[in-house]
């Protein structure tokens, strides 16, 4: 369990750090307009950098939503279920849906990510460096989801209220 606690803390720290990426994203995308219309330059660089930050932010946001419990759900009926039943449903959903999907993304995306990383692929339109980071973000997303699955599946079942 010490491993799971460490993993849980590590994911938490990564996401806490990732949340601050919203600020440079906001700033870069705001800069695009004056750079394009007033200074007539560097707006595409701002856009490319914004894209990199956006991809990393999104990669972390999926697990952030899972941890914060903000995923959209309609629990009008399910709120009548017992805590244990809900816990089992959640674990079943993770095993049937989330786990195979994240594994498939990790394994199925191997070729795309590795070939991009091998040549440190740049942006196809602007030739700016760093495009491979967007592809790497796909792996980051899958790894974080899988790590969170390990944490969630290791949690003990909620006890039934007496």
């Amino acid at each position: 369990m010490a491993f799971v606690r460490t993993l849980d803390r590590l994911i938490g720290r990564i996401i806490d750090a990732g949340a601050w990426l919203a600020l440079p994203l906001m700033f870069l995308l705001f800069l695009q307009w004056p750079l394009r219309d007033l200074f007539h330059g560097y707006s595409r660089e701002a856009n490319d950098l914004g894209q990199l930050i956006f991809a990393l932010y999104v990669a972390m946001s999926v697990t952030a939503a899972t941890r914060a419990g903000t995923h959209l759900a309609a629990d009008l009926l399910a709120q009548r279920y017992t805590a244990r039943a809900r816990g089992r449903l959640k674990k079943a959903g993770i095993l049937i849906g989330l786990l195979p999907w994240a594994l498939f993304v990790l394994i199925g995306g191997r070729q795309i990510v590795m070939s991009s990383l091998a040549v440190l692929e740049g942006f196809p339109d602007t030739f700016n460096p760093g495009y491979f980071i967007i592809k790497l973000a796909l792996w980051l997303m899958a790894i974080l989801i899988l790590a969170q699955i390990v944490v969630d599946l290791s949690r003990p079942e909620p006890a039934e209220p007496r």
Partner: protein
Amino acid sequence: MEWVGLFLLLLVGLGIVLTGLPAVIVLFSVASLGAVIGVLTDTIPVALLTALPSRLINLLENDLLQALPLYVTLGLLLDRLPVADSLYRSGVAILPRRASAPLFSGMLLGALLGPMNGSVGASVIGLSRVVAPRLTAQGVPAATRDAVIAVASTLGVLVPPSLVLILLSDAMLGAHTIAVTATGRNDRVINTLDIFRSALVPAAILLALFLALSWIAGRSRSVAAPRTPLARRELLLALVSFVFLIALLGGVAAGYFYAVEAAALGAFALLCGGILSGVLTFRVLRALLADAIAMSGALFSLLLAATSLTLILRLLGTDRLVNNLVAAIPGGDSAAVIVVLGVIALCAFVLDAFEIIFVIIPIVIPPLLIRVADARWVAVLVLLTLQASFLLPPFGYALMIMRGVAKNPAPFRNFLRALVPFLVVQWLVLMLVLAAPQLVHIGEDQKAITRAPAKPFSDEDFKNALPPLSDPADQ
């Protein structure tokens, strides 16, 4: 095997309602089930499934989707800073001293902040925090108060540049591209700005009618709203915010800057204002950013899951089945549009607007646009239907959230009674736009208007229209 796809869609609805699991987990589970069925029955070659990572990378580099975290952050900033409060109080102070003034000002605030607020949920929470206590203090009945706040919270759906509008624009762009390619029409594919502009007149009509209804709803009270003194600083903040918001909305509608840039500009200005005024301390900002990444993740994971499921549906051939079903709808364009809008409205009983945009729109709209040439008209009708879906009793998203956050909610029956006039007006505007497509083309460049095909489309043409979507080359 194409019918399996429809079964999977049914399973999504049932799974969401019966399990209470997050929609994203249900979508991933159903997509996995569909993939297993497809592979085991040799309908889907395993190699085609490797198209999924590329599709997901497309989402990570989508320019338009960058607006998503920005709008969420913008909504949270508006909620934390005293902007909404100042605007509402200034609105009441400026309006004639009548009993209707607070309701009118609340509705106006919804229209002003809704597009900037990220989502309907954020609008309900924001307006409930700012407007509800004041309406209660001024003796507005709980049912009227809740109805006006729920309705005002949905205005952002239709008034550009809202998050729903941006995401729908992205879905419509994809659908229109498929339709234009399939039919060989020489139309320019619609973009976000086209849809913003097309929605302006219907949104203005709806807003005017909602404001009139709010005024009428307040007239039944005999007591005029008491005026609380407004500090000069507060009035100045309201004035600056109002001018800024109008400039931002106008700038996007006029095409001076993109919706993403507007969201970034708004969020950046609010952030600077919050830091300079001392409201946004490090601690508050940290909590705000943690909320922003969690809420953005909820929306984005829905998009990832929907992308996975729609790929499976296409590989199963369900898109072709839907094409054939849409082609078989008897009657003209309007009949086809009504049936598809009816399907979307039915989906709204179990799916919320974001789920509809990500899962249902990519399946039902491309075949509709192959048959109906006017993509702008269809887009605005879908927007109006989505907005109505937020208020559709008993499970409408805005209604559910309103009931959840209201401190002293009115009995549901009274709440519905207060809501009925607004619902009637909403459906009347929907029918008006359905009957008069020219309402979405006012002031439009005639060359840009989507044209009907040069020759009528036969059933056979229609059935053969879409490219073979399960072809590896398409992936």
